[in-house]
């Protein structure tokens, strides 16, 4: 590899890969400290407009960077992420660092521990730059529900970056971090990755620990990486994945070297194209890009098969019942007693609960708590929550049947390119429909990757969603690499 020298002044326009940066830090040609300072310089320049970072963790970052540089100077082999500047979505805890989940109700909250995903990255040498903006409690598809203001899409700053991990996607797109962590409950990694033109990975449910993730809907919530390219994302997933005694749903299945898996070509892989993802509501420009991406996969030797996933149209109503029911229970903990905001107007315990929640939560969070509480309330449970759980099984079974015949499934990530700020804020249902192609995998628990796949005539990014079966990340990464290579 040629010598790579990165200084605070000379951060390259095109970000280097994790492997290239790590090699440069290992050899000493680039100092991790300079790299971190370089990124903080970029953040200072671009954050006022983009509103990506909510808090910077400079002290912790520079101490870590200095440790990495010292280890490299002594000739020790540094970690897989050593010196790599990363950003953390603000729904993941960092010990002692303000963690708000994009909500006023957690303003000033300093958690007493690190999320497992955060800890694993840091143990691998990553330099944690700071906490990243998102929709309040990860509820949203545009990042406009943050109590700390919306994030702007670096590709077109009049447009949204997607949500809820909009800041995490925008950070990578604007090179304000080499990689970031996001979370995905109904599409919150994949849709913003698509909107910002970066790679976002939804790992299989149970592949990455949720410990330290502020819960929205526990049976759906997942933690995953954003990166500028597929191989980087694959490398990070191998670090994040694995069993954690703090999360009883985390899997003991061995973790693959996903980056090495992604190096394999797609010859002979069977890829399913579900007709239900190409119907009414799909923007013709998005459709054209996805079809051209599919042609590329065929040219690379994959076998393309038409398939049908008949229950797809029921996924949005199912999701908004399951997720809101779980949210209404999870968010009961925000009551002004143990952490976060307490209304100064409280006069007794009951008014403290109600006023703290009324003043601390934003409109979308209240809407979802109300819907979930309604769906779980006496007389409606069977009609709504139980019905949704039954349809969830049908959706999951349908995917498992489909994966008996194909190795991966490809679809558009989002039916539309990134929309303008304010365009959908008055119509919650229209906003929910932005998740129409992503909620299915969330409900089924399978894995997925959004990979850039061309742009519209106006230059807006289009993302292809590559879905794999439960714990089938390896095949999904291979397909995503092939899509990326054809760009």
């Amino acid at each position: 590899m040629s010598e790579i020298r990165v200084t605070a002044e000379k951060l390259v326009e095109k970000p280097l890969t994790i492997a290239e940066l790590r090699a440069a830090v290992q050899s000493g040609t680039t100092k991790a400290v300079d790299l971190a300072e370089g990124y903080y310089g970029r953040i200072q320049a671009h954050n006022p407009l983009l509103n990506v970072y909510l808090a910077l963790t400079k002290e912790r970052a520079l101490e870590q960077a200095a440790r990495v540089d010292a280890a490299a100077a002594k000739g020790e082999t540094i970690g897989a992420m050593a010196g790599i500047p990363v950003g953390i979505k603000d729904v993941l805890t960092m010990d002692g660092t303000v963690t708000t989940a994009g909500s006023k109700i957690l303003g000033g909250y300093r958690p007493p521990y690190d999320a497992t995903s955060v800890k694993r990255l840091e143990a691998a040498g990553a330099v944690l730059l700071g906490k990243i903006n998102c929709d309040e409690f990860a509820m949203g598809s545009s990042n406009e529900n943050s109590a700390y203001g919306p994030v702007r899409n670096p590709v077109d700053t009049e447009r949204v970056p997607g949500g809820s991990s909009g800041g995490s996607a925008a950070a990578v797109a604007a090179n304000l971090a080499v990689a970031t962590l996001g979370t995905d409950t109904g599409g919150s990694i994949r849709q913003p990755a698509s909107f910002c033109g970066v790679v976002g990975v939804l790992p299989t449910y149970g592949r990455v620990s949720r410990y330290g993730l502020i819960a929205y809907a526990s049976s759906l919530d997942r933690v995953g990486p954003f990166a500028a390219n597929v191989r980087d994302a694959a490398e990070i997933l191998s670090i994040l994945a694995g069993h954690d005694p703090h999360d009883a749903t985390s899997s003991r299945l061995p973790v693959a070297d996903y980056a090495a898996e992604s190096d394999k070509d797609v010859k002979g892989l069977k890829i399913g194209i579900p007709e239900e993802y190409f119907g009414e509501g799909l923007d013709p420009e998005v459709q054209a890009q996805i079809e051209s991406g599919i042609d590329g996969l065929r040219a690379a030797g994959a076998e393309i098969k038409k398939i049908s996933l008949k229950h797809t149209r029921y996924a949005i109503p199912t999701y908004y019942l399951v997720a809101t029911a779980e949210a209404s229970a999870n968010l009961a903990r925000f009551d002004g007693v143990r952490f976060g905001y307490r209304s100064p107007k409280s006069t007794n315990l009951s008014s403290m609960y109600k006023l703290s929640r009324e003043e601390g939560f934003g409109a979308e969070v209240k809407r979802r708590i109300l819907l979930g509480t309604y769906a779980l309330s006496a007389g409606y449970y069977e009609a709504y929550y139980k019905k949704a759980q039954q349809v969830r099984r049908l959706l999951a079974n349908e995917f498992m049947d489909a994966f008996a015949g194909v190795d991966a499934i490809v679809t558009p990530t989002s039916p539309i390119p990134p929309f303008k700020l304010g365009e959908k804020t008055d119509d919650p249902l229209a906003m929910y429909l932005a998740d129409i192609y992503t909620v299915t995998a969330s409900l089924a628990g399978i894995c997925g990757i959004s990979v850039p796949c061309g742009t519209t005539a106006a230059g807006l990014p289009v993302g292809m969603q590559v879905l794999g079966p439960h714990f089938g990340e390896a095949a999904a990464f291979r397909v995503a690499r092939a899509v990326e290579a054809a760009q």
Partner: protein
Amino acid sequence: MSTMVTLEEVERVAELANLELAADEAPAMQRDLNAILEYIEQLNELNTKGVEPLAQVSDLLASVVDSGDGATLRPDERTGSVDRAKVMRSAPETDGAFFKTPKVIER
């Protein structure tokens, strides 16, 4: 649009959820909930008689997730917990040992 949820029901649900909606907030929530519930109605097109509800995908994956070692319970060993001082630094009101709240029982 059909009205499935009345304003009184919105207020009842808000009470259950410990939310005190502002006067102008309740009608907006009623409108949104009705629009969403009307959309959700389409689930009734599906016959789900006899379909077992799925609460957690781990149920589907029991064979792979638990890898047969039966270790769903951890060993009963004493381990550390989070530091009390660290927890209390984010409490709205504390005496250092306990969380303090407004008076619970009126006399």
